[in-house]
């Protein structure tokens, strides 16, 4: 009985993943505004999707106005239910000199397509930058995990019985770590920036890959073509690179694609607990965590990053499935 395929799903996954990756990669050019800019936190916070505001320079502060009117040379604007006039009254404000008074005026009109967060930052821009961070983090960590995992797996598979035993026990040991706590401990104890996070995530995710790589390589090592290559006196490293590695690439690719997804989920969970990617930088995880505070009043802050995350991970799952079907239709699926 043939295995059923779902080419449509695969196509959807590839397209969605491409779109998200493109959005993340070109976030600096695609994002309408600076993702960290707080123009007027008080009047700009938690604006619903589609809100428009005018940026007004007023004294020392830049404010967001709902409406502006020009009445014979004078400019008035509405902010938080209150009409004010430009230029700012030098004597007004908090008693400071109005140095910036001559710079007063309407700067620009902004559209917040997905609304704003608690500091009045543009949610669309933050979601795009968040995609960049989350995807980069997931992908870079998996690359690191692949490097370590395949390395350890290959040495274990080809390095003889004892080395194999020692290395695999070592891997078991690492798997035995309650590693979510390890990650929390490390991200909590040390200030974390992106490269450190990649190291931590990649450094804790390579163990299953090394097991898979070892099993695959071991099963290949006994095959005729590899034995033949050895028999021809080809250098073992060359045999490995030319003949073994290409043959284990497809199961590893499937595994790696899924891992990107799991690591994005792990990062999200750690950020949800308050560690992980640190503000002001956005990742999908901390965007969702931020949104939780405002669930009852501003649903959009948590909804959009959650949707993005779910769509992306579903696509990853689709693509990984598709890859498996394409590359190796006979292989049973791995357990977890």
């Amino acid at each position, binding site marked *: 009985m043939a295995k059923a395929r779902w080419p449509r799903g695969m196509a959807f996954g590839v397209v969605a993943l491409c779109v998200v990756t493109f959005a993340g990669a070109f976030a600096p050019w695609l994002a309408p505004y600076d993702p960290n800019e707080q123009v007027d936190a008080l009047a700009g916070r938690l604006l619903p999707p589609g809100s428009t505001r005018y940026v007004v320079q007023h004294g020392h502060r830049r404010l967001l106005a709902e409406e502006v009117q020009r009445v014979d040379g004078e400019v008035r604007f509405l902010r938080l239910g209150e009409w004010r006039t430009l230029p700012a009254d030098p004597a007004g404000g908090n008693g400071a000199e109005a140095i910036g008074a001559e710079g007063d005026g309407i700067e620009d009109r902004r559209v917040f397509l997905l609304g704003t967060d608690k500091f009045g930052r543009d949610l669309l821009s933050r979601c795009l930058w968040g995609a960049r961070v989350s995807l980069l983090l997931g992908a870079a960590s998996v690359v690191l995990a692949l490097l370590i995992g395949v390395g350890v797996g290959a040495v274990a598979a080809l390095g003889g019985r004892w080395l194999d035993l020692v290395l695999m026990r070592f891997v078991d040991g690492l798997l035995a770590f309650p590693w979510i706590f390890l990650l929390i401990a490390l991200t909590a104890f040390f200030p974390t920036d992106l490269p450190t996070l990649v190291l931590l995530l990649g450094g804790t995710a390579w163990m299953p890959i090394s097991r898979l790589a070892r099993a695959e390589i071991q099963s290949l090592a006994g095959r005729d073509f590899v034995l033949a290559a050895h028999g021809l006196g080809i250098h073992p490293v060359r045999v490995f690179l030319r003949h073994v590695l290409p043959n284990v690439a497809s199961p590893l690719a499937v595994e790696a694609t899924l891992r990107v997804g799991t690591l994005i989920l792990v990062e*999200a*969970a750690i950020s949800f607990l308050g560690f992980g990617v640190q503000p002001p930088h956005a990742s999908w995880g901390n965007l969702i965590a931020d949104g939780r505070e405002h669930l009852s009043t501003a649903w959009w802050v948590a909804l959009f990053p959650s949707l993005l995350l779910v769509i992306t991970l579903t696509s990853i799952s689709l693509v990984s499935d598709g890859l498996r079907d394409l590359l190796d239709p006979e292989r049973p699926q791995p357990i977890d």
Partner: protein
Amino acid sequence: MLSYACRRAAASLLLLYLVLTATFFLVHVAPGEPGVLFENPHISAEQRQKMRSTLGLDRPVGEQYVRWFGAALRGEWGYSIQLRRPAFGVLWERLPATAVLVFAGVFVEHLLGLTLGIWAGRRPGGRVDRATRWFAMVAWATPGFVIGILMIEVFAVRLGLFPPQQMSSDGARNLPFWGRTLDLLHHLALPALTLGLIRAGVVIRFVRNGLLEVLGKDFVRTARAKGLSPRRILWVHALPNAVGPLIQRLGVSLPLLLSGSLVLEVVFSWPGLGTAVFSAVLQRDYPVILAATAFSATLVVLGSLAADLAHAWLDPRVRDRLG
């Protein structure tokens, strides 16, 4: 088989030792000191030093390690710095809550997974199969805390059907056994459902693909040719073969007891192990961290041992190979 188990056990003990040693050095070398040292601004530097020496923290790490290891060998895992109770006692107290949550979650996971997986596997490529597949993927793709928060918002706050947190009500202590169990189940519903949902995706696909594979095999074809009813083929021939590896997977998921449900424990204010260890980590409660590591590593070892043995027990080919 016995010698195999012995060899495995020996290797496991060594493993346990290595994991504990690594954890010991990691937590002691990491920056930060137990929170109790700083609870009171009026503690003088001198007094703080005295507290350190009472806790043995003023000694070189190597010496602390030797001392700790000696005590651990005698079965003394020390006192929680934060709670001033035996470290294992702290964990033991929290274990039931997490155990109940995890087992209920695993139950939901398999109930959902088997039902949907079988349903989907019976007619591959059909409408049910496709819907199930999407369900499985979206469930896998959604972070547990997102589902948890949604559940609370909908079923607890909006509809008021289930309590949003904790594992018992105030009055439950005085109810008869069944009343208490009902109360527990009432509190358990949302977190267990959440845990089951996020994990069911994998089981669904697993059962479905397992079924497809088995249904294509010769013995099933033979059975079909013999004219056995499809139901009988499914339940008697195909399913047992398809779910074997699931049991193995169960063993491997034992460590979930400690870490897997942490985020959900936080979301549902569930008084379990995960949150206990979480706070021990932040408070630098070294004895509790080490006890938890020992506990978790033991679970991993036991889990994979049990999984292997179960696998061997179910599959005569493996049994023979192990000799």
